[in-house]
């Protein structure tokens, strides 16, 4: 079953074409990776899917509903975490989770916070202020926030970017577990090729605002006669030398 269907999305910022004719779909429980060099348009694409950026053209349907016209219903069923957002620092972990449980209209916020604390092993951090936490701990709290409404689709923009290899690995295992056990779909960007290879059912490569290659990790390495996804990445990224590098 398709839960997300984006067709021919486009977004320009002044002279910059950030996203051009991007179409993608996500099926229930699928983990989809979005890869590409800096400035390829990954975050812009995700932000359009989240209703943070209005596309210039194209359409976004989730759960059979048009995002623009059914914003509240759609946003109730998805969630988001990113390395570049933070949670209110002065609040304690349990307060943050309680607040977001309410912002998502959770029926029994207290019970839900209890479940999340359990799931993400946040017991000892419950009464700590968010600003006192390490990056890895914060990421865990962010993921708890992102799961607060039991989303059918999780949109994650470089969720492990600030983490050491060990913490990153734990988060990845957790994400895979959450996806597999509960059938949540994920759309994830990352610059960590092993991560993507390990987690994603399908991968889209973006370059200069377009999707230039799609497939499973195995299919992509095959098509590009590469030994690893990293090599695919380099081939794809360097295939268009006119793409401005930051």
């Amino acid at each position: 079953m398709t839960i997300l269907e984006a067709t021919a999305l486009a977004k320009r910022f002044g002279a910059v074409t950030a996203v051009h004719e991007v179409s993608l779909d996500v099926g229930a429980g699928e983990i989809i990776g979005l890869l590409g060099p800096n400035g390829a348009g990954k975050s812009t694409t995700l932000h359009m899917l989240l209703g943070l950026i209005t596309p210039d053209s194209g359409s976004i349907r989730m759960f059979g509903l048009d995002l623009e016209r059914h914003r509240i219903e759609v946003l109730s069923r998805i969630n988001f975490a990113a390395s570049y957002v933070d949670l209110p620092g002065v609040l304690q972990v349990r307060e943050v989770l309680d607040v977001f449980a309410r912002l998502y209209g959770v029926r029994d916020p207290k019970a839900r916070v209890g479940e999340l604390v359990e799931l993400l092993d946040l017991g000892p951090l419950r009464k700590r202020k968010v600003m006192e936490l390490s990056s890895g701990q914060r990421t865990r709290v962010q993921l708890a926030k992102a799961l607060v409404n039991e989303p059918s689709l999780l949109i994650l923009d470089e969720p492990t970017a600030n983490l050491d290899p060990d913490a990153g690995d734990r988060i990845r295992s957790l994400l895979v577990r959450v996806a597999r056990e509960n059938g949540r779909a994920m759309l994830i960007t990352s610059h960590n090729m092993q991560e993507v290879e390990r987690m994603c059912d399908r991968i889209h490569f973006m370059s200069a605002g377009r999707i230039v290659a799609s497939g499973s990790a195995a299919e992509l390495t095959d098509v590009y006669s590469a030994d690893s996804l990293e090599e695919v990445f380099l081939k794809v990224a360097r295939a268009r030398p006119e793409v401005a590098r930051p």
Partner: protein
Amino acid sequence: MTPLTVTHSPLGLPARVTRIGGVVRRDFAALRRSPIRMFEIVFWPTIELLVWGFVTVFLQSQQVPFVVAFLIGAVLLWQVLQKASNEISIAFLEDIWSRNLLNVQVSPLSTVEYVIGLILFSFGKVVFAIAVMAGLALAFYGFGVTSFGAGLVPFMALLLVMGWSLGLVGISAVLRFGENAQVIAWSLVFVVQPLAGIFYPVDVLPEPLQAVAAFLPATHVFTGMRTVLDGGAVPWGELAWAAVLAAGYLAATLGVFAWTLRYARSHGKLSRFGE
């Protein structure tokens, strides 16, 4: 579409009430965890009250004929306007400062629910601050808020509503022009100060400014306040006109806020705050 289990149905009243409650709780928790801000709620009003209180003491000692209550009453009611305005903008700016804006913006909270949440919380804070000030005014200067008579509630209500409108304009300015427009959010309310005849009757203003003043709900509140403190009746007709103005401005500024939010989304501004 599979039914939602853990959450209320998103468009129903229980979901809306829960989401608004989330906004209020967030602000309340932030306040509780930040003693400096608790202190600030009463700090500025107290300072203003002291300064103007001593001014009245001095003027009286100089045998200047005037009504003490005019000044103390004005200081009290001015705080209602200023706080209502600033509290709304602060609540919004805090999301920007703590890089939490995107989390709020991708939640199913609607614009109206968000504004209602901000308004409810600012209402609580204003009432608390005014209660503290009213106590001090009584203790220091023997001024009781009961001197406003039946005007007390409509005076405060009109200033609150006008303050919220100003706060929404401040937020809208930040959404439209970026973080530097914070200055507008802080200072807009002070544009009203000279115009609304807070510490003096509007008659002292030049004619053109008097015309402008007539369109500010606050002007009618402060004029009404002086009438009441002078022993006159509450000018209900004038307050009704002020209420029409205040409601009109609130509706208009809500529209402006919704428009600037659409602008920010279409220009990709939401993800660019704090950079």
